[in-house]
């Protein structure tokens, strides 16, 4: 944790309410998100118990598995999830932008224009926490390879027809959630914790109820007490007042309420009493609905809180990457490509790591550019400085054929950048990307004189507006403001001997 966020937490302890960690919203929020609150069956890997889902805040849809050990019931459940979710996921595939780019034919070297489709919008799934992301990933893993009755060789336990397709989509969105800055599948606790600092630890922030208790404590109450109630408060039956946001249920709920209900359901089924079985299943629905509905409302409350912040300037750009990702997956499904493999081959793994690293650098940079609180982290760390321009002296580089503008800009700052004369800095928030070199440093007075090196046009005099003026507020970083390009990698079929050769 950085000193700045530590300070924010300290301030939250004193004030009894969470303190802002961002002045803008750093994640995209869809106009029509699809919320899922999934629960897992305890002890069974990736086995669903229930989910509350939908786009309509007032009318969520509840799906349950009355006996989680029953594989048929599990797949019936996943088929129903697919019925709800797939139409939503697929609904973004039709509305596209057409983008042109010129490409060079590798054989002939001729330039041709390529037209590509980019979906105008993409789906956004919201789950309460990273556990929800992981569970969706497990659903994807357990279903995308399933054979269905439509397969030539359906096997002994064919899954319902659209279940493998759901598995591929869930795999895609949960993979995408690992890409820094993406918003296609948002875990709410992490997203909220990016924007607010509570008076508790980050471990405790993983509890959605406690986190919300700090961000918006009840009227006249303090976050600490509200969070304690959310974590630990129990009713006279020994049940939590604020049910956990999943995917695990409270063990006391399991033992006191759910287990007996499942036992009754099993008995009714064993007696082959269809009406009673149905009634018992509805009892289970009622139990699970009662612990899911509070979380459902918490998720929407969290989204409301996030919407109070204006979006950061680069959020739309990053959402475009999500749209590309969505479009690509849509195309792979349409092209009949096989489901995502269990393990990446060497080249794919390296490509995906490179993508994630690039996106991490990008989101860090963009957040700093969009949000003075994020930039403050770099300023405090000596990696950036901001202040007022106190003097501008025109100067020129006359070494070339025609003189080029290299004006000297003196900035007064209270920051203490780790920058020595000769070192490079990059102007943040300027009209264009602009590099500068520190010429002179007066640490006592907080005065830095920088020579601007580019971004001023091709003429002898700088283009208007490209050089800051005295009195103007400026900010420079010691790091470059664009992520570096990743190096090219071989095609998988050209995997070298050092990495085991081409995949078999």
């Amino acid at each position, binding site marked *: 944790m950085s000193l700045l966020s530590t300070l924010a937490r300290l301030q939250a302890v004193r004030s009894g309410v969470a303190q802002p960690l961002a002045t803008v919203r750093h994640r995209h929020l869809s106009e029509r998100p699809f919320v899922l609150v999934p629960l897992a069956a305890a002890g069974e890997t990736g086995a669903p118990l229930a989910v509350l889902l939908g786009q309509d805040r007032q009318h969520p849809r509840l799906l349950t598995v009355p006996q989680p050990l029953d594989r048929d019931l599990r797949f019936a459940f996943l088929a129903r999830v697919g019925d709800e979710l797939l139409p939503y996921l697929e609904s973004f595939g039709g509305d596209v932008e057409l983008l042109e780019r010129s490409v060079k034919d590798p054989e002939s070297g001729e330039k041709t224009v390529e037209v590509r489709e980019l979906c105008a919008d993409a789906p956004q799934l919201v789950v309460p926490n990273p556990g929800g992301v992981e569970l969706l990933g497990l659903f994807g893993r357990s279903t995308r390879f399933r054979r269905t009755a439509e397969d030539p060789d359906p096997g002994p336990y064919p899954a319902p027809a659209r279940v493998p397709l759901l598995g591929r989509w869930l795999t895609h969105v949960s993979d995408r959630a*690992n890409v820094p800055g993406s918003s296609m599948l948002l875990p709410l606790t992490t997203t909220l914790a990016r924007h607010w600092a509570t008076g508790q630890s980050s471990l405790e922030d993983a509890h959605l109820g406690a986190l919300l208790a700090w961000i918006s404590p009840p009227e006249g109450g303090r976050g600490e007490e509200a969070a304690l109630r959310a974590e630990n408060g129990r009713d006279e039956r020994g049940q939590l007042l604020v049910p956990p946001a999943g995917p695990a249920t409270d063990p006391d709920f399991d033992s006191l309420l759910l287990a007996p209900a499942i036992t009754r359901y099993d008995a009714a089924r064993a007696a082959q009493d269809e009406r009673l079985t149905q009634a018992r299943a509805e009892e289970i629905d009622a139990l699970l609905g009662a612990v899911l509905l509070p979380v459902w409302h918490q998720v929407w409350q969290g989204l409301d809180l996030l919407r109070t912040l204006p979006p950061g300037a680069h959020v739309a750009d990053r959402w475009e990457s999500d749209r590309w990702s969505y479009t690509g997956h849509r195309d792979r499904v349409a092209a009949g490509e096989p489901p995502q493999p269990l393990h990446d081959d060497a080249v794919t*793994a390296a490509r995906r790591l490179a993508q994630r690293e690039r996106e991490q650098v990008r989101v860090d940079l963009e957040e700093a550019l969009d949000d003075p609180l994020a930039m403050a982290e770099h300023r405090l760390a000596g990696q950036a400085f901001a202040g007022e321009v106190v003097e501008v002296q025109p100067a020129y580089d006359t070494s070339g054929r025609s003189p080029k503008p290299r004006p000297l800009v003196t900035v007064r700052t209270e920051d203490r950048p780790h920058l020595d004369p000769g070192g490079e800095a990059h102007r943040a928030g300027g009209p264009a990307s602009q590099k500068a070199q520190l010429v002179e440093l007066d640490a006592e007075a907080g005065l830095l004189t920088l020579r601007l090196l580019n971004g001023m046009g091709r003429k002898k005099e700088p283009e208007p507006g490209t050089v800051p003026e005295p009195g103007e507020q400026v900010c420079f970083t010691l790091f470059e403001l664009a992520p570096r390009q990743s*190096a090219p990698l*071989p095609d998988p079929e*050209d995997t070298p001997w*050092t990495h*085991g050769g081409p995949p078999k």
Partner: protein
Amino acid sequence: MTTPSPSSPATSTPTSTPTPTPGEQADAAVAAILAAALHGGERGTVVDSPPGAGKSTLVVRAARELVATGERLMIVAQTNSQVDDLVDRLAEADPALAVGRLHGSDALPSEIAMRHPGVVASTKVGDLRELPVVVSTAAKWQWVKETDPWRHAIVDEAYQMRSDALLAVARLFERALFVGDPGQLDPFSIVGTDDWAGQHHDPSQSAVVTLLAHNPGIVPHRLPVSWRLPASAAPLVSDAFYPFTPFRAGTEPGDRRLELGPPTTASGTTLEQAADEVLDVAAESGWGLLELPARLTVRTDPEAVAAVAAVVARLLARGGTAHSERGSAPVDADRIAVGTAHRDQAAAVRGALAALGVTGVTVDTANRLQGREYDVTVVLHPLSGRPDATAFHLETGRLCVLASRHRHACIVVTRAGIPELLDAHPSTEPVQLGVVSKFPDGWEANHAVLEHLRRFRVPVR
């Protein structure tokens, strides 16, 4: 920063005992390595080299032998300064050798490399590809487009190279010699890499780990003798950091001697007196531990920084002479380094030294001191004054780098109480199935080193 050739004067005395001398051990290892690189049945040869074991000497020698076969050689290093250093060494060793220095447009080669007439620099591989040797960073090699592969490559500091970087450059060569120190800092990623943990080709792990996993026939060679570390340091560093691949010092106790001028400041401050005292201990024994009273502090603990600066200043003021198998030479500022864990600590030490009028001493973080060598090092202990340890501070490679840069003596400056801090540290390290454990454990190594250093303790009162 030159390492003696494996048959250094100190060990050339013929011996009749069956136990090989360090020089003989090292020569045998190098001969086997060169044979494997040239004619071995495997396309890859791996050499593990502990600190100061003559890795650079090996690289230069291997390069010359590979070139002598008439084949073209490419050399991959990890940083621009490593590349410049290698180019310089190659040209020193063989002024007639034409060496290509491939570089990026924003990273001009250093003057050290370019002072040799045989060295040609270019940003385009096409200008250099017919030269017998071309040297560049992995980052630059990755961008070299389709070309006839080189017959041989040498990959230097291979343990600091990531698997994905090797994946991007491996198409450029047919056979390769990988040389590196497994005990130094691992490569890392700024994002989570659990998705690939335990898989042979995890792109975030070291290139050597991937190579060995895919080529089980490759048995790593080992350079068994450290020519840098003195007899007082090699056993500790070997035990604490290379528990399964031990090495020895190339010199015997008494072969190296650090002679200091008398402590002139009888009237000095307590700190100066303690600094003098710890310098005497270190000159005598090779180690010194200057211990400040226990206190929780911020990273740039002003007292600890002042103590580091005082030790350096007193060392320079007293004037030292380093006697070794290479002869005798004064311990000037350029033979002294200060190592820290964090950049802001290094900056604070630089400031403190400047205030004392000391210039020319290298002050840097462990990351940047990798591969460097000095007569005397002064280390600000990574855990000094901290209320808790973190994975960063416990990383084995960090302490290993800091404790293995010296030829004569290493002085560690710290707050008291680190063993207790370590005792209270949670041992909840995650374990990934299928991932080969990297040894040793950082927590254990920290304890082991401190336990040893306690014997050379000088408290600041």
